């Protein structure tokens, strides 16, 4: 079985995994980082979104073995101690969640969106760019508001 070594949220991690082990399984079951959620397991819902070498990906459709040597950031890696990341703070402030299941993926996808498209995002752009993340509570309205506010708050970081 392949041995994977990667940096997750700033810490190095290493384990022997099966070839078929998915990144989301590795994060949740080996590293016990259960903030990354597994929703549809078919790369549609985006609940499992993490950053792989700085880019948002659906960790249910990435092999853990393929991430050897990579840098991974999960929802647990965004806050600095008790200080929430501006995007997390914006979701709290604007009530960008209902049941909360999709929230980790929404936030990781939102930060990726800001990294790709900048801090000044109009609502239409946010809705288009959020195509890969589904909220089954259909609470998109506040999610969009939260992402716009979080994007602005990330300016200069």
């Amino acid at each position, binding site marked *: 079985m*392949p041995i994977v070594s990667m940096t997750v949220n700033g810490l190095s991690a290493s384990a022997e995994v*099966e*070839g*078929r082990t*998915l990144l989301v399984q590795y994060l949740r079951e080996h590293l016990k980082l259960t903030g990354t959620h597994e929703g549809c*397991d*078919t*790369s*549609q819902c*985006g609940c499992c*979104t993490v950053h*792989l070498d700085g*880019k*948002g*990906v*659906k960790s249910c*459709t*990435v*092999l853990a*073995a*393929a991430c*050897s040597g990579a840098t991974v950031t999960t929802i647990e890696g965004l806050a600095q101690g008790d200080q929430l990341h501006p995007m997390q703070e914006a979701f709290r402030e604007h009530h960008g969640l209902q049941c909360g299941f999709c929230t980790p993926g929404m936030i990781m*996808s939102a930060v*990726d*969106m800001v990294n*790709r498209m900048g801090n000044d995002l109009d609502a239409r752009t946010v809705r288009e*760019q959020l*195509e*890969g*993340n589904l909220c089954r509570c259909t609470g998109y309205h506040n999610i969009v508001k939260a992402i716009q506010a979080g994007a602005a708050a990330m300016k200069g970081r």
Partner: protein
Amino acid sequence: MYDFAYSRPASLDDVAAALSAHGDFKLLAGGMSLIPTLKLRLARYAGLVDLSGIVGLNGIKRDGDAMVIGAMTPHSVVAASAEVANTLPALASLAGGIGDPLVRNRGTIGGSIAYADPAADYPAGVLGLGATVLTSRRRIAADDFFTGLFETALRADEIITAVSFPVPRAAAYAKLPQQASRFALVGVFVAQTAGGVRVAVTGAGPAVFRWRQAEAALERRFEPAALDGMALEADGLNSDIHASAEYRVHCAGVMARRAVRAAASGAPSH
């Protein structure tokens, strides 16, 4: 998903050797189609050979009159490339419309065309522009590359290294996305190339194909009205829960007209 042996060689020779030694090994690029297929147990391989460890398969460069895109270049990179936007905006737009942003960060052009999903977008761009597929063994013209449902001209141990797109005079891609998957229910790529007008249709048949009748009409007059009264034959086209063959025939006509209008109104692409 059944388990498999995983390897990530550092050279094309090692990849080819692994494929030659094991007939039941498969190449892994971005995995956006292959991994879901394995999860659903629609396919099973004894091993996956990951191409992500090979330097030089990722990137975009201008080579004379052609734009050469490395096989492992993700869709998001093609979509965001200033060079592609300037010389081949239709291809940048096509890449930016595949799946969703997270899928585009991972999926690759080489993986897409090797997989040859009948509803994928890239095959329409490759065939519509008359591109050349560069492999570890040879150069394959787009017209010879897509041979059937999930079938290509690639041999078992042959590896796509890049795709070379001749820069067209004008081009555009229009697709009607299937609402859940964003795959093309029907997508039409239209290009005015040095060799004439090319029209490639994806999503409608078992594999991407050229609409020769439309090409001939647009060669005479490159405007949407040139396609008036013209339709594909429904016989042999896809008919499934998403759309009947007749509906796809209709949509192909609409998408072709939209693509012609966009291509004709666009600034010269170089």
